[in-house]
């Protein structure tokens, strides 16, 4: 194994890797760091630290936090339950239109969230939604303005992240281990439960954490499709947005809470992000 690492590209001492850093790069790289760091610094400096505890224990903040946790966790769970079979199919089978399916599934990742909201209305709205109008006319079920709508919006935007992480996990899997288990008489379900899923532990965790984090931050699709009501659809980002109009201090304090949660996500995925 020691000889392996010596030949790996990471330690090769090519002039491009180890040579003098171009001055222009230093300037642009510093600008890049500043671009990200300055707003964070601004948030830290503007946060009314003496009031933080009072604000974060207020009813608005607590209600929004509770709802955010419920919505993000449900969205991450749905993303995994639907995302794992989809990743499995995408990695381990070939069928016509596979690339198209993949493109469609990943699209929400790069789609403006407000467009996602409009799309969700077109699918699940009670008036003109493809499914929504049918649900409403036949069963009197209206999704818009409900917590279910907030979950749907959060799932829509976080699903691609789960699928991508699970796909990567399945691709990196040594299929011989699954074959060996099958040869020894294990059923497919047993192989999945006792070999495939345990081997993919880290990637499954990554899929859950990434989709949870994306769901937690969802704003545009939620406010467009689910609306904004305390305790029902007002998640933390929506609370920040509303408070920004009336109580700026509160907006900064809640923003800080969201930053800390995001920071915890990075820490949890440090193996993935901080190598």
């Amino acid at each position, binding site marked *: 194994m020691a000889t392996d690492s010596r030949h790996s590209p990471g330690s090769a001492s090519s002039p491009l890797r180890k040579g003098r850093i171009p001055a*222009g790069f230093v300037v642009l790289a510093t*600008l890049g760091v500043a671009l990200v760091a300055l707003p964070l610094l601004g948030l830290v400096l503007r946060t009314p630290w003496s009031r933080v505890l009072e604000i974060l224990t207020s009813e608005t903040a607590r209600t929004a936090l509770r709802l955010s946790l419920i919505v993000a966790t449900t969205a991450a769970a749905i993303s995994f339950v639907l995302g794992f079979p989809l990743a499995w199919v995408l990695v381990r089978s070939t069928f016509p239109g596979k690339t198209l399916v993949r493109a469609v599934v990943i699209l929400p990742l790069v789609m403006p969230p407000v467009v996602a909201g409009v799309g969700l209305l077109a699918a699940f709205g009670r*008036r003109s939604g493809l499914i929504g109008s049918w649900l409403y006319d036949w069963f009197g079920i209206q999704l818009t303005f409900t917590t279910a709508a907030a979950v749907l919006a959060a799932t829509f935007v976080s699903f691609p992240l789960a699928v991508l992480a699970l796909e990567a996990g399945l691709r990196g899997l040594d299929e011989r281990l699954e074959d060996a288990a099958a040869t020894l008489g294990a059923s497919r379900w047993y192989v999945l439960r006792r070999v495939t899923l345990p081997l993919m532990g880290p990637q499954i965790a990554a899929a859950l954490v990434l989709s949870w984090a994306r769901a937690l931050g969802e704003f545009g699709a939620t406010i467009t499709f689910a609306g904004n009501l305390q305790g*029902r659809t007002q998640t933390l980002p929506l609370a920040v947005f*509303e408070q920004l109009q009336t109580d700026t201090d509160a907006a900064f304090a809640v923003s800080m809470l969201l930053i800390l949660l995001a920071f915890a996500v990075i820490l949890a995925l440090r193996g993935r992000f901080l190598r």
Partner: protein
Amino acid sequence: MKRVLILATSAVLLLAACSDSNDGEGTTGTTEASGGSGGAEAELTVSAASSLTEAFGEIGDAFEAANPGTTVTFNFGPSDGLAGQINEGAPADVFASASPTWMDSVQDDGPGVTGRADFAQNRLAIIVPADNPAGIEDLDDLTEDGVQLVLAAEGVPAGDYAREIFKNAGISRAALANVVSNEEDVKAVITKVMSGEADAGIGYVTDVTPDVADQVTLIPIPDEVNVIATYPIAVVNGSQEADLAQSFVDYVLGDGQQTLAGFGFLPPP
């Protein structure tokens, strides 16, 4: 070096484009003067209540035509949000609010204002989808079980006025229990009603513009419980174009009155 410069310039341009198109607070629209051969180039930024979107759009065009070389850029949004932006130092030469409260805020807690004057009044109304799915006919109908009612958030003038009307009518508790969403501004309320997802919303009489008249229906609110919104306008202190800003204010108070009346606004008190 040249390449680095190009890279840096395009990065800056990209950033500028992003901040233009996504300021997080309402919509921004620019209209360019077509003439521009005469006077000096000047740009005026007007932060205006979102209920003024259509009327001020037209007034802006007319003002540009009357002042060649001038470009008026509008920042439409909820008055409370706009006042917050201005108080935080966002550039604005003119502020037009849908309620005196938020003009007071800029005057007292922000950079201050000059030449403040009331320029219009507006009435609130119930707004329902054209097919009126919940069969709303008056304020009392808003209290019926299961009505999906959408208001502007508290703090937004249209939201505060709506809550005041419910109080005047003595239906606060039952009506507020039917609220399914508190929207960012009054235009967002109209959007939710237009899409047919909400059964009713409270907006301004002027929100039912010809563009949306076939999709929403306006139900008047009786005068004895209705609220009359008063709209103040002023030059924001610190404006780089104070003179031009004042002429815009004068224009709104003068020639602009006819345009405002055309869009259903009432004359100032």
